[in-house]
């Protein structure tokens, strides 16, 4: 492919013409050299195209993952009813319109894997790190566009393996998204521990490769390719958040990878890393001396940072969007960066709070309690800063602003229940109950996806040159936030009663069967919420072709660099020289001409002080 138009020659001359003129001329031939379809749309090395590839793959996975949750919600809500439509779609697995327990667990496992990894990691970081890092720091592309392309295609390959695993005879992996051995290691233990589990492991190994290729690229791009004047402390908080997301991934995914490799060995080559003293399938196995708990340590060493890999991009985007639409600088820019550093550091030393009841030393548990509750402090700082950003603002509502406010609300609700679970003395009862489901779905699942939706509504015009329909957007927002609370709020009570998660049917339990009616209610709400997500998907794809066209370069009145590019930016982002940066990214103030913001490219006025 021809990248001749893109010369990273480092001549960062200031370009005043770009900074003030927000009314772009009609986009002229935006590609100097017409590229072949394959190189432009498929094996593209343009970070903007790769970000579109990530988001569309992510959306497809999100539909599959969410549909699975609807299937198993039908079982949970109405265990005695048969749904012929499920038999039609799932065949043998839902004979007579009722899920088999084996496939119920497979659906639960796939729902978790898909949403956590394929949607909220690849779909979220992949999309926005690719789109925003080069555009917001003023780079023509990633440090290595080729590696960036590989990152997507490894993700694609990983997706193919995961998709194939859905169709094998013994079904996909069914040991939960955490796939603890021995359940996941022994083919005798469950059907899903057969070929489905092998495919799961291959897929996840490829996923780790994709994530590392991406992460290394993001970090080196942020550190090396900032335009002239773009010091680290002039970077928008989105870039900061995406940088730390990448750091988390690069440092923790290899540990998960090693965990998976050992599991592959235990499954196929007779080693005993995780296996010891097991009698299953009518015989005693020869494995001795391994520790099933070792896997959990390796898994959660990624597994916990993974939560922040999901949260940080949302935090960054919410900060940006709250500030832009409050027409006010983000409150406490440096405090926001410091709290990101704090969260990133602490994320590595709290993993064993997922393992309080594995029989580990109570002393070790107490250390993790202390470290876990420490992480509440930077999280609280972020919340207070968001609230103060709204304070005395001039708030302008659009769909992304709604999602950003929803993000903050959900982050508070879900974060506070973390204080229960992080305290081992309370976790000992709540562990692995519906309380946990409610907690992580609100704080990580829904809140994470709200951050993503906010980002999509905000940067959709940058990606496609058109706007998403905002009427549909408002319907999407309000139904989703109301639905999310209706689904997950009642689950707290079920968890407080001790109702375990991952139960196919609760009818034989004296202690839990009183929750059956509420389970039915939750299931109905989740179907409605699912339908509204389809409305969003429709809005997304329809608006790519039919949405209202963007007519100005900077529709939201933002200060950051991505809005100085053309409406349809070329591969290389800026037609002329890369703009030079003169000020911090949240200069919302009187610009002297009746405007309320000053783009980063505008030089400081005489006597004007730099933001410190």
């Amino acid at each position, binding site marked *: 492919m021809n990248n001749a138009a893109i010369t990273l020659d480092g001549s960062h001359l200031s370009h005043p013409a770009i900074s003030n003129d927000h009314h772009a001329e009609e986009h002229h031939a935006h590609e100097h050299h017409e590229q072949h379809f394959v190189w432009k749309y498929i094996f593209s090395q343009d970070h903007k195209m790769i970000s579109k590839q990530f988001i569309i793959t992510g959306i497809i996975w999100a539909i599959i993952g969410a549909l699975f949750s609807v299937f198993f919600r039908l079982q949970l809500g109405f265990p005695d009813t048969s749904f012929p439509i499920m038999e039609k779609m799932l065949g043998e697995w839902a004979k007579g319109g009722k899920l088999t327990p084996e496939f119920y667990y497979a659906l639960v496992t796939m729902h978790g894997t898909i949403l956590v990894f394929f949607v909220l990691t690849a779909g979220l970081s992949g999309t926005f790190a690719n789109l925003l890092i080069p555009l917001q720091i003023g780079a023509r592309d990633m440090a290595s566009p080729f590696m960036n392309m590989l990152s997507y295609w490894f993700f694609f390959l990983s997706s193919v393996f995961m998709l194939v695993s859905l169709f094998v005879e013994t079904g996909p992996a069914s040991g939960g998204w955490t796939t603890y051995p021995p359940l996941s290691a022994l083919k005798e*233990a469950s059907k899903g521990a057969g070929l489905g589990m092998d495919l799961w492991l291959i897929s996840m190994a490829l996923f780790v490769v994709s994530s590392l290729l991406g992460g290394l690229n993001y970090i080196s791009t942020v550190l090396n390719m900032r335009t002239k004047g773009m010091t680290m402390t002039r970077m928008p908080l989105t870039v900061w958040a995406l940088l730390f997301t990448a750091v988390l991934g690069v440092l923790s995914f290899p540990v998960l990878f090693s965990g998976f490799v050992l599991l592959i060995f235990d499954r196929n080559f007779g080693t005993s890393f995780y296996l010891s003293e097991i009698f299953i399938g009518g015989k005693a196995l020869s494995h001795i001396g391994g520790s099933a708990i070792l896997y959990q340590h390796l898994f959660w060493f990624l597994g916990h940072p993974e939560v922040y890999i999901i949260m940080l991009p949302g935090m960054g985007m919410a900060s940006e969007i709250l500030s832009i639409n409050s027409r006010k600088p983000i409150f406490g820019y440096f405090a926001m960066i410091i709290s990101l550093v704090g969260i990133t550091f602490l994320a590595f030393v709290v993993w064993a709070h997922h393992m309080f009841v594995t029989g580990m030393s109570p002393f070790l548990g107490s250390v993790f309690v202390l470290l876990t509750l420490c992480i509440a402090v930077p999280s609280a700082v972020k919340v207070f800063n968001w609230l103060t950003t709204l304070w005395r603002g001039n708030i302008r509502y659009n769909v992304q602003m709604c999602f950003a406010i929803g993000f903050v609300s959900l982050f508070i609700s879900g974060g506070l229940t973390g204080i229960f679970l992080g305290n081992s003395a309370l976790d000992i009862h709540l562990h692995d109950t519906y309380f946990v489901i409610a907690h992580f779905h609100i704080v990580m699942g829904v809140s994470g996806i709200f951050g993503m939706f906010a980002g999509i509504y905000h940067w959709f015009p940058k990606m496609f040159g058109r706007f998403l329909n*905002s009427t549909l957007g408002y319907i999407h927002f309000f139904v989703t936030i109301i639905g999310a609370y209706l689904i997950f709020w009642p689950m707290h009570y079920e968890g407080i009663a001790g109702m375990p998660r991952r139960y196919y049917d609760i009818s034989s339990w004296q202690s839990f069967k009183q929750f059956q009616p509420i389970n039915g209610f939750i299931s109905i709400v989740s179907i409605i919420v699912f339908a509204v997500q389809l409305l969003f998907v429709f809005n997304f794809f329809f608006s790519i072709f039919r949405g209202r066209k963007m007519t100005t370069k900077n529709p939201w009145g933002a200060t950051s660099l991505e809005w100085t590019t053309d409406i349809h930016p070329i591969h290389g982002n800026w037609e002329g020289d890369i703009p030079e940066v003169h000020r911090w990214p949240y200069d919302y103030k009187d610009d002297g001409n009746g405007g309320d913001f000053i783009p980063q490219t505008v030089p400081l006025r005489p006597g004007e002080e730099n933001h410190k």
Partner: protein
Amino acid sequence: MAGFIIFLLVLLVFVIIYQIGKSSELASIIRGEEYVKLKTNRTIASLFVVFFILGIYGIWKCNEYFKGMMLPVAACKTGERYDSMFMVTLAVTGVVFFATQAVLFWFAFKYQSSEKRKSSYFFSHSNSLEVIWTTIPAIAMTILVAIGLRNWFEVTAPAPANAMVVEIVGKQFNWLVRYPGKDNELGVRDFRKINDANNVLGLDWSDPHNADDIISATGEMHLVVNRPVKLLIGSRDVIHDVGLPHFRLKMDAVPGISSTLSFTPTITTAEMKTKTGNPDFVYEIACDQLCGSGHYSMRGTIIVETQEEYDAWMAKQPTYYSNNKPTEVKPVAGNTTEKAEPKATEKAMIN
């Protein structure tokens, strides 16, 4: 075919909503963008307030609905401690929850852009505010950690010397309970000696302590009220978890590793029946770690009774040795099939 028609209908509805949305956007351009923006602002900001008020009402209603179902009566000392700590945490987080959510939605309403409000107060940072709201959560967390660790060390403390010892072992998909018998000592067991026909736990018959051990394969455990008990927890195959909601306890059962739980039940099953007004009340042991397709049916029960009732029950229990008369069968690999598994599940459920 029907599915296809439904799909088309849904798509049609989406297109219609989309077009309505689009036409309203076009109309807004005609009516003047500024005017419409302010109107949208007013609507959305008010909806946020409505959302908040309805939310608070919903939470209140939800609490009413779940009042009787939520925390079951705690049936041991540490369980009562647990409940009070839970309530303290709930109070702290509850206050923060209502305060921050109220502020969020109030600001969202109050500071909306309107005819009166044309620009914001460009206020970008304040170090003293940052210090205040770093310190306050830090202090709150310190208090919660202090309470938590006190309870944690209490609940994980070694069992007192006079505690009765009961072993509970998980397998797909039921619980096996072993009592030490007259000598008060559990014999050695070896997973290589397990045999589903006549040695479910792999007791090593060369150890004399095993001779009087009693095994219950029905998943029913008998405990004495007000007498400390130490549970020895193990697993035969995959990871299970002994979940005891009424005692606010939980511990994984991991193959190859032995874990323990100790507590003192304070209410008998009979008392609980009157207390809860539920004649079918029973303490349940719930498996809390996904262990395979029968996970949800891996149910055990606990009967808490007085010493006399317990002694009378115990006297009737045959030892596992006498019941299974092992003729020192060598556990040949694969001589029993696991086809018996679903039956075991049913057994556990009938209980």
